[in-house]
């Protein structure tokens, strides 16, 4: 939570995509990405999230980190809607390669094929990789 000021109106809205390709908890990338996404919401840009490769593991249901002494950020993906971040794209091929389906995920997403994902990336102004 922050007491940030709203950005001045009339600024250009750009398309930002955060690309997540790493499993959670083994490295800090997933959490860092999520924190940057939450902060970026303050700037009222057109933000989307992509989950590819091991990045799809970030959205697994039933994550319980009690035994590894790390804070779980699994539930935080469900807060994104309240931040007006509603474009979560998950790549179908990445899910299938890991024996997963949309039902295994903690939040509502749009499952897209690799070709559509490539289109989505291509139309961004800024792409940030994690």
């Amino acid at each position: 939570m922050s007491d940030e000021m709203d950005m001045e109106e009339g600024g250009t809205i750009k398309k930002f995509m955060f690309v997540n390709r790493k499993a959670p908890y083994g490295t800090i990338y997933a959490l860092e990405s999520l924190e940057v996404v939450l902060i970026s919401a303050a700037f009222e840009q057109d933000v989307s999230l992509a989950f590819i490769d091991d990045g799809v593991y970030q959205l697994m249901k039933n994550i319980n980190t009690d035994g590894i002494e790390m804070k779980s950020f699994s539930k935080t993906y469900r807060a994104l809607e309240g931040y007006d971040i509603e474009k979560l794209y998950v790549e179908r091929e990445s899910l299938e390669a890991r024996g997963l389906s949309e039902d295994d995920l903690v939040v509502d997403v749009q499952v897209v094929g690799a070709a559509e994902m490539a289109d989505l990336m291509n139309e961004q102004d800024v792409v940030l990789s994690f």
Partner: protein
Amino acid sequence: MATVNIAGKDVELDEEGFLTNLADWNRDVAEYMAKEEKVDMTESHWEVIDFLREYYDEYQIAPAIRVLTKAIGKKLGPDKGNNKYLYELFPYGPAKQACKIGGLPKPTGCI
């Protein structure tokens, strides 16, 4: 880091006065934090603190002020879901002050 004794219990605070261990929180701790922040706790204050703690329990983060305002408006009505109301209750920033009193960590992205 500092340890203070609140109602007979030793509680650890970080350099900015936030709880180090979130499990240490109780109503006495909240009253102590509020006094440090020069906030007189009323039912209206508690309503916001309780809401924040519920939000944190559900999403594991403290919400940005814009998100908090919107969510409070939805739950408690538009007369409470606005900046003016929240700033009257917590003049030095509803985000930071209410989180501190509510025993939550310093908000993500809070400068």
